[in-house]
C-alpha cells in the first residue's frame, strides 16, 4: 500500500531557469509527481542523478557544457533506476533517433498540450516509450521509406 503513495521523483534539466519553473509549475499540479531537483546543463543533470537517484529526468536537448544527448547516454549507462524523457522543440528525425538510441524512454515535443507531459512520465515509469504523435509519424515515415533489406532474416521461401 505504501508503494501507491510513493511519488514519482523528477529532475528537470533545461538551461533556462524560467523554463524549468514553467515545467515545475505544471508538474506540481499533479499529486503523484514531485520535482526533487533542477539542472541547467548535462553535467549538472548527471550530478543530480548521482546525488538524488530520481525516477525520471526531463531532459532538454540543447544545453551548454554537455548537451541532452550526451547526458542521456551517460545516465543510461549509470547503475541507477533513473529513466530519461526528452522534452524538446526539435522534431528532426536524426536527433530523435540519436537520443532514443542513447537510451531515452520517450520524446515529447514542446508544442504538445501540457497534460501530455504527465502521460509521458507515467508511461516511462511503466517502462513504456512515449512519443509525441508527430514524432511517431516521422519515425514511421523513415522506416517505411528506408530501402528493403531482402526479406526477413532466417526465412526462406521453398
Amino acid at each position: 500500500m505504501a508503494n501507491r503513495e510513493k511519488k514519482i521523483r523528477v529532475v528537470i534539466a533545461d538551461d533556462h531557469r524560467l523554463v524549468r519553473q514553467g515545467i515545475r509549475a505544471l508538474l506540481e499540479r499533479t499529486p503523484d509527481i514531485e520535482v526533487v531537483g533542477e539542472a541547467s546543463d548535462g553535467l549538472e543533470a548527471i550530478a543530480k542523478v548521482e546525488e538524488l537517484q530520481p525516477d525520471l529526468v526531463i531532459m532538454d536537448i540543447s544545453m551548454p557544457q554537455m548537451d541532452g544527448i550526451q547526458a542521456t547516454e551517460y545516465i543510461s549507462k549509470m547503475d541507477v533506476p533513473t529513466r530519461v524523457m526528452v522534452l524538446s522543440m526539435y522534431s528532426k528525425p536524426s536527433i530523435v533517433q540519436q537520443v532514443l538510441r542513447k537510451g531515452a524512454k520517450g520524446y515529447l515535443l514542446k508544442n504538445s498540450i501540457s497534460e501530455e507531459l504527465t502521460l509521458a512520465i507515467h508511461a516511462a515509469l511503466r517502462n513504456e516509450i512515449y512519443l509525441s504523435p508527430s514524432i511517431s509519424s516521422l519515425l514511421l515515415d523513415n522506416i517505411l521509406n528506408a530501402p528493403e533489406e531482402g526479406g526477413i532474416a532466417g526465412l526462406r521461401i521453398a
Partner: protein
Amino acid sequence: MTITEREVLQFIAQGFSSNEIAQNLKISEESVDKYSTSLMSKLHVQDRLSLLREAIKHNLIFVD
C-alpha cells in the same frame, strides 16, 4: 494549453518583453506574440496584466 505556451507565460510573469522571450526560447518574436495571443484567448483576457492575474489565480506559473 501547450508546454511552450506555459513557458512563455512564465517569462511574461517575470516581466520579459516579446523580444527577450524570443531570444531566450530561440523562437521568433512573431511566434511569441502568437503564443501570447493564444494564451489570452484561452484565459479569456485582453491584456498581459489580466493574463498574469488569471495565471496566478489558476496556479499556472511558478512563483519563487
